[in-house]
């Protein structure tokens, strides 16, 4: 797929997908649920959470039933992940598996039933985060994709693209360093957490770039002003939701 083939919204070019995201849907199939799944992706410091939160408020103000789900937040699984991180028990393989377990619980317990109920489900990070991180940790690309074959394919997957140095500046503004796994310290790339973060996130960025055509991610230039990014996001979401007549909108 060619990137940058020029959908223009106002003065800005956005990279809308030219083909639908091809996900390996094995169990939930090419779903035709009444709800819509919208996800944001990007490295830490890309500003994706800020954008999603602004989108959330806007959709609510329009009367949509909106639900938010965050990466690594399953009430059933997150304590195990926390335990594994704290005790440094996680290898690339178990890091990958425990995150997929968390994601499975959120899919089964909330994402899927809510989509069936006609909600707009907003996810801060989705399977692409796992694909990027786990492969950056040395896991087999095909194995990780197959692992998440049960995931529901999102209607829109925004990728907030930002240069590494910009992200590091944003993140270090207000704190001293990075956490062990966040910086990929388990990979022994560098002794210094900032340097390790830079190397590890560099690998992750490379994986995201490969996924843009593979999954038809919608790229947003995350160096633009917050308001401009949000305007683009809303335009794209609006264009999509206007077609979705079955969504529940309160009068």
């Amino acid at each position: 797929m060619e990137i940058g083939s020029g959908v223009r919204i106002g003065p800005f070019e956005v990279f809308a997908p030219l083909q639908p995201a091809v996900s390996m849907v094995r169990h939930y199939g090419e779903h035709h649920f009444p709800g819509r799944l919208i996800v944001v992706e990007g490295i830490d410091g890309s500003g994706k959470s800020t954008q999603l939160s602004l989108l959330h408020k806007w959709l609510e103000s329009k009367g949509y039933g909106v639900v938010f789900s965050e990466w690594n937040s399953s009430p059933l699984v997150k304590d195990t992940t926390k335990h594994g991180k704290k005790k440094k028990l996680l290898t690339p393989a178990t890091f990958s598996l425990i995150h997929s377990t968390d994601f499975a619980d959120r899919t089964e317990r909330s994402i899927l039933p809510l989509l069936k109920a006609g909600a707009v489900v907003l996810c801060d990070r989705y399977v692409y985060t796992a694909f990027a991180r786990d492969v950056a940790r040395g896991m087999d690309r095909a194995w990780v994709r197959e692992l998440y074959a049960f995931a529901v394919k999102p209607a829109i997957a925004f990728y907030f693209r930002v240069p590494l140095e910009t992200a590091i500046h944003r993140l270090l503004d207000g704190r001293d360093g990075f956490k062990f796994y966040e910086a990929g310290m388990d990979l022994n790339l560098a002794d210094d957490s900032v340097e390790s973060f830079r190397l590890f996130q560099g690998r992750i960025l490379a994986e995201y770039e490969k996924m843009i055509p593979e999954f038809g991610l919608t790229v947003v230039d995350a160096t633009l002003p917050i308001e401009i990014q949000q305007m683009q996001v809303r335009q794209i979401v609006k264009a999509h939701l206007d077609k979705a007549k079955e969504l529940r909108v309160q009068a």
Partner: protein
Amino acid sequence: MRETYGRLLPEMRLGDLAGKLIVIEGTDGAGRSTQIDLLKPWLEELGHAVVDTGMTRSPLAGDGIRRAKEGNNLGRVTQALFYATDFVDRLENEIVPALRAGFIVLTDRYIYSLMARAIVRGMDPRWIRSIYSVALKPDAVFYLRLGIDQLLPRVVFSRGFDYWESGMDLYPGHDMFDSFCSYQSALLTEFDRLSAEFNFQMVDAAADARTVCAHLQQNILHLLERDSRKSYMSRLYNDSTTAPQPADAALFAVATPATTPSTNGNGHHHHAAHSGD
């Protein structure tokens, strides 16, 4: 050279895994843990170092799985992946290091039980096989087979119906008896299918525990015979009059310099191994 079922985890070297991986499979109530409790001391008396492992014993995920099962609200995909996390944690941190150190690893269930449970719960067989493609191929899989008629009294009359053993997550609305029969029958069917694919050695688990154990011991001795590093002890054990072969003598001298063959190869275990013949 040891193999996996198709995919290799990062930094997993297969070249120097000298130990033996022996799997005891079977449904609930087939007597797996009884057999492992008998086999472990027997192997140790023969001079083999043994590690035993089993489901939900990982330091990473064991407690989490137990907590999740308390609530009876663990979804099917979540369940399959939680168990996979537990398995891979033990594979990387327990099984592989033990094999590298030359231990015999006795495992109470392996990927086959996990695959059977997931498939019975409607997971795609290709999906679950792909996940477990990172598992090591074991040296032997003993499948303790028990029909549903024999299984029922063993499980139910000894400890009563258990929510998960009865597959109540699969058949909500059934009573536990109906659910148990449907679930365990489906598991048995799936095990039989896996048996052909993965070369299980079938053991009739309806026999009494000592008979089953004697059968397992015989097959395990046979397995160890084929490995020169492990065979010397078992040969001593089988026939204490056998003179050490020159190659074995060198091995033996390194392994146990302080003792003589005759003191290790005492005869009373010999009786135990064949008591069921």
